């Protein structure tokens, strides 16, 4: 029965976070106004403008809700679910409870790719981010493989090295970049939803939804893949499946990084919270990670924008929240028993 209660909590959590986040900010809007305004807009949209409700709220409400907060909250939720599901998938494919796309360097690779395209190449930022996230992934894995084995710790160490490497490359780009572009890059790199508008939503919604859907459909085979090489005797092409999952995850991470910068630790923590309450079965782990990843990310963003009068980059908030958790996990798992 307690399981049911926790399940309901996990599912209600993102809805709760969604509405809370729309209310709070520099300018607080009451929940009733939010609900009514959204209902009115929805009604208008469904009936193609033939019906509309007359609401007597100040026009600033409308602007803040529809032009500022709503796109920002939607962006945060999409990015949160993308990062959380990425963490869950990477932990399964590498049989390593201590990784996510940030720790193994996928995010840093993507950031470099995005900065490169933004400052110097006539290429699409998203595509360039994706290509370099895959490059970073491949390098980390190759580096971590010592005598045919990838251990929990060797993967993390390789991730640290790749993070350092791609950060250095990105710094180099910043150094070479024109001044008017530089300011934007610096702020974006720290991770932020401050620039999230409908344009951003329109560019990340489809790729991230598609990625999450694909992983959701394929989620049970993550159980099998987490058996490591042994999965081949159960009929799974381990190399091919790993590549498929990792590509989808890199893709989602790259999209998130290209628009909102590097946001670490969310992908590491979310799956663990689900595992602690519901066990490791990916049938439940994946959908619930998506749900609480979305909810957590908007709440963290609320902290980022409402805690102080100026805005703290979200990446800083998640890092401060994430590190104690990582230390706890490292102690608990002992950091070394498994190998891929």
């Amino acid at each position, binding site marked *: 029965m307690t399981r049911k209660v926790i399940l309901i909590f996990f599912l209600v959590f993102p809805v709760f976070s969604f509405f809370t986040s729309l209310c709070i900010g520099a300018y607080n809007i009451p929940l009733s106004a939010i609900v009514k305004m959204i209902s009115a807009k929805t009604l208008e949209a469904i009936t193609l403008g033939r019906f509309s409700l007359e609401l007597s709220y100040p026009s600033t409400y409308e602007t803040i809700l529809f032009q500022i907060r709503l796109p920002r909250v939607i962006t945060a939720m999409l990015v949160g679910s993308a990062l959380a599901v990425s963490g869950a998938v990477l932990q*399964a494919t590498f*049989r390593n*409870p201590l990784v996510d796309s940030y720790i193994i360097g996928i995010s840093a690779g993507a950031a470099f790719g995005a900065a490169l395209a933004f400052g110097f190449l006539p290429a699409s930022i998203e595509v360039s981010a994706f290509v370099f996230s895959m490059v970073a992934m491949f390098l980390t894995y190759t580096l971590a493989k010592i005598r045919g084995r990838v251990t929990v710790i060797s993967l993390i160490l390789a991730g640290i090295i790749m993070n350092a490497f791609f950060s250095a490359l990105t710094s180099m780009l910043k150094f070479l970049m024109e001044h008017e572009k530089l300011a934007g890059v610096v702020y974006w790199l720290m991770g932020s939803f401050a620039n999230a508008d409908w344009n951003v939503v329109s560019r990340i919604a489809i790729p991230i939804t598609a990625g999450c859907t694909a992983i959701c*459909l*394929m*989620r*049970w*085979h993550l*159980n*099998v893949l*987490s*058996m*490591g090489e*042994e*999965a*081949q*005797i*159960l*009929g*799974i*092409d381990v190399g091919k*499946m790993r590549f498929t999952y990792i590509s989808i995850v890199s893709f989602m991470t790259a999209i998130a990084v290209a628009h909102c910068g590097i946001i670490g630790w969310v992908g590491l923590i979310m799956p663990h919270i689900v*595992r602690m309450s519901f*066990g*490791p*079965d990916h*049938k439940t782990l994946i959908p619930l990670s998506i749900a609480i990843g979305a909810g957590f990310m908007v709440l963290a963003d609320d902290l980022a924008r409402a805690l102080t009068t100026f805005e703290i980059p979200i990446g800083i908030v998640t890092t401060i929240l994430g590190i104690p958790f990582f230390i706890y996990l490292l102690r608990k798992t002992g950091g070394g*028993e*498994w*190998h891929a």
Partner: protein
Amino acid sequence: MLEVKNLKFRYNGFEVNASLKVNEREILTLLGPNGSGKTTLLRCVYGILKPRTPCVYLDGKDVHSMDLRERAKNMGYVPQIHHPSFPYTVLEFVVMGRASQISTFESPGGEDYRIAMNALKLVGIENLADKPYTQISGGQLQLALIARALVQNPKAILFDEPTAHLDFKNQIKVLEMIRRITFEKNIATILTLHDPNLAGIYSDRIALVKDGKIYAIGRPEEVLTENELGHVYEMGVRVISVDSFRLVLPVLNKLRNL
């Protein structure tokens, strides 16, 4: 029937070279010293290691040319060592044996869980179904691995040292279980063992393996002789008959009498 014809495989320096046949409802045991090539042979038969030319046939079909799913539906493999993963429940662990029957975009359904539960009942650990599989004993894990191989519904199963690390009673229990499923499910079974006495009791035929080759193959009473065992293990061996069984003992040297 599982047939191995002129299997040849080389590790740097070590060569395996073998031919053998196992019928359904028959247990063939590979017996031989450490490093004689039993695991390598089993891995070659399954195709985890790939010999250059086709040499393994299941009911006439070339096993190594099957795709992975096809192979898993036909053959099971129970490894010598299992590296534990996330703490899945025993039932979730066993249902993974259904992977070859479940498309990439699907999850196991009620029928798959029912099959897994039946396999757990057959091996006698259905009471552990909801326990994390990382928290059960070595003997219970061996039974869970057997159950996982069973739900693949294979025609042949290869067991690599199914009795390793088990106590006296559990060794018997696991071997009884293997014998039972071999008969009830019409399986062609190959296993490797280190104890010649257990091999004598539970095998229909025994193959003595030495230096990657099959030194002798036949029914237990033909193979478990002082001569053959002495040669394969390079030590003094005594064989005495008790009831209808052969009992193998080492020739005691002086140290034992100190």
